[in-house]
């Protein structure tokens, strides 16, 4: 494993030797001693195939899964059981836009609930702020008061992003956020994530099976295989000269739009 990360950059999130084990006989070690650093405003791509443990890692970071090892947020430990204030530091966007919103709540209600529970705005400003966030996420204002059933997949994912942003997190973990979307919509959502990262200084952990998505959005990429990070490098370097055999296999398998290499 190599790591070309500039050590000088301020780490907003650092995980050391993180493991996630699921009960059962025998127990399954989904994540095996993973260490990662994420600098403020950085976009790190976590790539791997299904079952490699990338989603378990994401869930552990968001406090949804108990894990061994350390998660450090701005230099302080972030435990599995979090206070409300600690919980909002890491927010997630999920893969399936059709399951990620409460079917009985409108877009505005979905976002407003976060603001209200965390008391991030005075009561009378909550609705206004919710609309502002939805606007920031690019949801047309005409559909801000509709329920998810009336929204397209892309629009739902925008609401989910606005909900995550409402808590003003330091780290946004996006678990396959565009996998369920059409290509033309995927591009728009990737643009939005890149834009938010730039304007809000958000650190982005983008989890995907699609190396091309990582190539478009991320500065650095970590390749995960069987619960371990097998290679970590800046994206151009990783694409140009993959070191680990698994990374090479993965890259060779990606179908390309253009004449086959060689």
């Amino acid at each position: 494993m190599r790591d070309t990360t500039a050590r000088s950059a301020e780490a907003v999130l650092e995980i050391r030797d993180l493991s996630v084990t699921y009960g059962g006989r025998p127990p399954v070690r989904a994540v095996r001693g993973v260490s990662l650093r994420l600098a403020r405003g950085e976009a790190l791509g976590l790539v791997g195939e299904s079952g490699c443990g990338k989603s378990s890692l994401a869930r552990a970071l968001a406090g949804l899964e108990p894990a061994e090892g350390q998660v450090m947020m701005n230099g302080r430990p972030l435990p599995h059981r979090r206070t409300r204030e600690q919980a909002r530091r890491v927010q997630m966007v999920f893969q399936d836009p059709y399951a990620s919103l409460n079917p009985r709540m409108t877009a505005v209600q979905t976002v407003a609930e976060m603001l209200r529970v965390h008391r991030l705005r005075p009561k009378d400003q909550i609705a206004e702020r919710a609309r502002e966030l939805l606007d920031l996420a690019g949801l047309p204002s005409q559909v801000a008061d509709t329920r998810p059933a009336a929204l397209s997949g892309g629009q739902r994912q925008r609401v989910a992003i606005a909900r995550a942003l409402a808590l003003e997190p330091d780290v946004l973990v996006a678990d396959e956020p565009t996998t369920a979307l059409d290509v033309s919509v995927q591009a728009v959502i990737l643009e939005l994530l890149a834009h938010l990262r730039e304007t809000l200084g958000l650190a982005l952990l983008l989890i995907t099976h699609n190396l091309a998505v990582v190539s478009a959005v991320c500065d650095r990429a970590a390749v995960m295989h069987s619960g371990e990070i097998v290679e970590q490098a800046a994206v151009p370097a990783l694409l140009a000269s993959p070191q680990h055999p698994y990374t090479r296999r993965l890259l060779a398998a990606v179908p390309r739009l253009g004449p086959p290499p060689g």
Partner: protein
Amino acid sequence: MTRTLAAGLALLAVIAGMVACAPLLAAHNPGQQDLLHVLAGPSAAHPLGTDDLGRDIWARLLYAGRADLAIGFAAVAAPFVIGSALGLLAGYFGGWPDAAIMRVLDIVVAFPFYVLVIAVVFALGAGVGSIFIAITAVGWVSYTRIVRGEVLVAKRLGYVQAARAAGLPAWRILLRHLAPNVLSQAVVYAMSDIVLTILAVVTLGYLGLGVQPPAPEWGAMMQAGEPYLSIHPALATAPGVAVVVTGLALSMIGDGLAAGLGI
């Protein structure tokens, strides 16, 4: 709204309207005896005739419906609320709360429904209060099972995960995010459960363990009419028909709701 649901609702509305307007639709008091005209056949004064004490069957049928419908609906409310709440808790928290609730549930379902209901009523003494307690003690298990299963599925979904990741308190996730989305199955079941409960009330009445005479009740009426089945069949069959028609209406509502909710 599906046609089945509309028809079921209409039928139930007619039945409920009739029993609610019993004083207007029946010329006689259901308890008023006329010992000179016992076991009379249908006449202008008594549309369905009279029973062995000369009471108007039509009046008793309507007033009995009041008792059966009211007890049926009311006796489903408690198991629905208690069972659903336990199902939410068991499904969401898992671990020891789940294990504890499910063990009790296993014990309750080990006995046949009627055996347990009758045993509880027998122990507590006949009467409306005992019926409520018995049906609640036995009936909650179905709601717990249904809701727990739904919660186990829903809690993996993104909106519940997002709520947890945002540090929302558990009670809020349960009430605001899970309950509204998992209770529809339980509501559909409640419709068929009312049928079952009314049948239980009728059965208990038939066995003399339910609503106590002289108050009219369909089951007790059937039991009282049984000896005269050959000479005055309306005495036992009229309340029987009433039970069947009410059950039909509720079943149609249940089926219609299920179809409408895509279950």
